[in-house]
């Protein structure tokens, strides 16, 4: 039953109580009326009876008086009184309920009437003739009257008792009524109080319990027992809702506690990590500070220097002060060029590239500061990333390679000086030998052979010096080429001319195949001839007797002309192919002496071709032969 219903019930009960009370009051009123009426009746009865008694006494008295005096007024009085008695006694029975009383009254009435008739009237009638009235009275009236009086008194006494009883009874009833009148509202009040108390209990107890539970819960104690929730009323709904809320709060409390615990754990971990990070940072600082290379750390994407070690300060020629902003400005002022003089854009610095995610190793730049300070440096830079892989900065190492440049320069100087120095005596030797060979007759073939040996070795020395010088120039980047449009066939023809001596001496044949539509190429003629000669002489060296060396010229790939020089020699093992074009590589040491190479030929050829924008390549199969390819860019019209 819902609260509302209960309240209505209470109100109903109140109303019912009011009705009951009213009804009770009405009933009581009726009762009171009845009692009053009974009382009235009793009183009337008593009054009547008293009146009767009094009338009888008065009748007797008047009779006596009349009889004694003989006054007619008294006789009238007696008659009046007797009429009155007659009237009155007639009224009496209606007040009497009990048959005994009625009977007694009747008896009394009979006796009185009998006296009246037989005594009073007789006496009255006889009065004038009676000599001794008192005596007669005494004889006739007094006993009768005595008897009557006695009856009357008895009657009256009974009546009085009755009346007293009646009165007591009425009083008792009145008392009861009063009590009931008091009790009914009192009971109503009590009942109402009880109902209200019950209602309050039904309403307030759960509410109080809920309030107490709320207090407990807010204090942190979740072990509360909630009152049972009736499923029908609002309190039940409240209790259920409260229970759910309590559960939810408990859960949330638990989550919060867990969350707090986790947070604490996390912050502990963070503290540990922070310590570790600080430690690492300190290590990094120490490393950066002490490492002999100039280290710079930049932040992305601004390219600003955030850390610079002392070596870096020294490199840029600054006092190692703490002024980071000044350092950053200083770095910005550097202009860079590549070794050949072409400018290097700020974006192309290895540092800038690292900020874009590219790792640079050994970028060679010449940096110049407006104050005139020029330093050749080697930049190695790599991006720094965070856990997500995003670029947060870059670390760069700079190496001042002024020394290296100096060493290089000295080496080149040395090489050029030496080769110059070497050429001069070689000129003398070669010249002398040649002139002698021309002038002096040498009939002995062995002698001629000796001269040949001397001459050819001189030439070999010259070749070695040339190769060394070329390599030195290539490495110094000082290989100056002057490309111009050339006819490939022309270049090949000149190359073939150069190797005539080798070709003539062997049984190897040279075949030239030129595809149609081969355009002019952009090449430095002397140097390209040098490259082709190198490949041709190699091919002729490795070609077996009576085999063919093929030179194949095609206009491919697009914008290039490819020369493919094929020999059917013993081929090159796959693991050696990678090293072929490197310095001082020969297939095996024995070849060096047999084929009189310097080991530099292919390296020089590669450099010469690549500097002109072409490429070199090789395909070989052991036992089948080798094909060396050389591509030259096509001259644009």
């Amino acid at each position: 039953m819902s609260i509302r219903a209960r309240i209505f019930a209470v109100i109903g009960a109140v109303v019912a109580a009011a009705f009951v009370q009213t009804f009770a009051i009405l009933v009581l009123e009726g009762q009171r009326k009845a009692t009053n009426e009974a009382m009235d009746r009793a009183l009337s009865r008593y009054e009547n009876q008293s009146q009767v008694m009094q009338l009888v006494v008065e009748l007797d008295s008047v009779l006596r008086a009349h009889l004694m005096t003989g006054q007619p007024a008294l006789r009238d009085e007696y008659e009046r009184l007797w009429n009155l008695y007659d009237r009155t006694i007639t009224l009496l029975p209606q007040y009497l309920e009990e048959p005994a009383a009625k009977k007694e009254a009747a008896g009394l009435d009979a006796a009185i009437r009998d006296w009246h008739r037989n005594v009073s009237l007789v006496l009255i009638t006889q009065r004038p003739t009676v000599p001794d009235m008192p005596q007669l009275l005494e004889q006739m009236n007094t006993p009768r009257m005595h008897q009557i009086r006695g009856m009357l008194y008895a009657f009256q006494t009974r009546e009085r008792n009755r009346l007293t009883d009646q009165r007591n009874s009425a009083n008792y009833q009145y008392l009861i009524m009063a009590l009931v009148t008091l009790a009914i509202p009192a009971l109503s009040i009590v009942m109402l109080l009880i109902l209200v108390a019950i209602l309050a209990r039904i309403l307030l107890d759960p509410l109080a319990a809920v309030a107490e539970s709320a207090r407990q819960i807010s204090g942190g104690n979740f072990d509360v027992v909630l009152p049972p929730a009736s499923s029908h009323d609002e309190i039940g709904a409240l209790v259920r809702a409260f229970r759910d809320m309590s559960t939810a709060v408990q859960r949330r409390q638990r989550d919060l506690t867990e969350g707090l615990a986790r947070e604490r754990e996390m912050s502990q971990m963070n503290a540990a990590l922070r310590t570790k990070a600080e430690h690492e940072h300190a290590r990094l600082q120490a490393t950066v500070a002490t490492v002999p290379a100039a280290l710079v750390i930049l932040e992305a994407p601004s390219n600003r220097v955030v850390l610079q070690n002392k070596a870096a300060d020294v490199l840029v020629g600054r006092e190692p002060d703490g002024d980071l902003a000044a350092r950053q400005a200083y770095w910005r002022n550097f202009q860079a060029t590549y070794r050949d003089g072409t400018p290097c854009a700020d974006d192309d610095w290895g540092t800038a590239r690292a900020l874009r995610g590219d790792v640079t190793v050994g970028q060679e730049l010449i940096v110049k500061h407006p104050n005139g300070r020029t330093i050749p440096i080697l930049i190695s830079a790599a991006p720094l990333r965070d856990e997500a892989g995003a670029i947060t900065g870059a670390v760069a190492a700079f190496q001042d390679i002024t020394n290296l440049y100096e060493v290089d320069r000295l080496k080149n100087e040395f090489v050029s000086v030496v080769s110059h120095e070497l050429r001069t005596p070689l000129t003398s030797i070669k010249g002398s030998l040649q002139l002698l060979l021309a002038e002096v007759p040498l009939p002995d073939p062995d002698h001629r052979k000796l001269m040949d040996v001397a001459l050819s070795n001189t030439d070999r020395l010259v070749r070695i010096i040339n190769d060394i010088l070329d390599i030195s120039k290539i490495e110094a980047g000082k290989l100056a080429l002057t490309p111009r449009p050339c006819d490939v066939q022309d270049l090949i023809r000149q190359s073939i001319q150069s190797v005539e001596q080798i070709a003539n001496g062997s049984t190897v044949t040279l075949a030239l195949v030129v595809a149609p539509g081969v355009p002019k190429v952009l090449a430095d003629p002397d140097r390209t001839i040098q490259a082709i000669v190198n490949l041709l002489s190699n091919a002729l060296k490795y070609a077996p007797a009576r085999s063919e060396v093929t030179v194949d010229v095609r206009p491919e790939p697009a914008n290039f002309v490819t020369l493919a020089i094929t020999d059917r020699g013993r081929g090159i093992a796959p693991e050696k192919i990678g090293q072929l074009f490197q310095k001082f590589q020969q297939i095996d040491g024995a070849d060096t002496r047999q084929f009189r190479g310097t080991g530099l030929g292919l390296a020089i050829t590669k450099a010469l071709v690549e500097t002109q924008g072409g490429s070199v390549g090789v395909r070989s199969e052991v036992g089948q032969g080798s094909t060396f390819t050389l591509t030259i860019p096509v001259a644009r019209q």
Partner: protein
Amino acid sequence: MKVLLAEDEPDVQLIARLSLKKAGLEVATVNNGIEALARVAVERPDVILLDWMMPDMDGFETCTRLKADPATRDIPVIFLTAKVQESEVAKALALGAAGCIGKPFDALTLGAQVIHILGK
């Protein structure tokens, strides 16, 4: 044909001289650029062979002076270079040299080379 050879190495002088003689050319030799200029003033050659590296005055400066002097401007100059630097050849040609012959040269064909260059 008269050839003036400026070369500081005596051995090379000998070789060159003999070689050119074989080719039928008359050779006068000096040791450096200063002597060359002096000699040119005395006896005008048909061609001057200049070594690149010489003490006191090198080939480059000598040629510059020769070409600066209207009296000697027209005399063809051929450089003998060790061809150490490509730039030598370029410089030489820029100066107005008729050609370069690299060292070590072919002693048997030196004369022919000179004539060939002059013929161009």
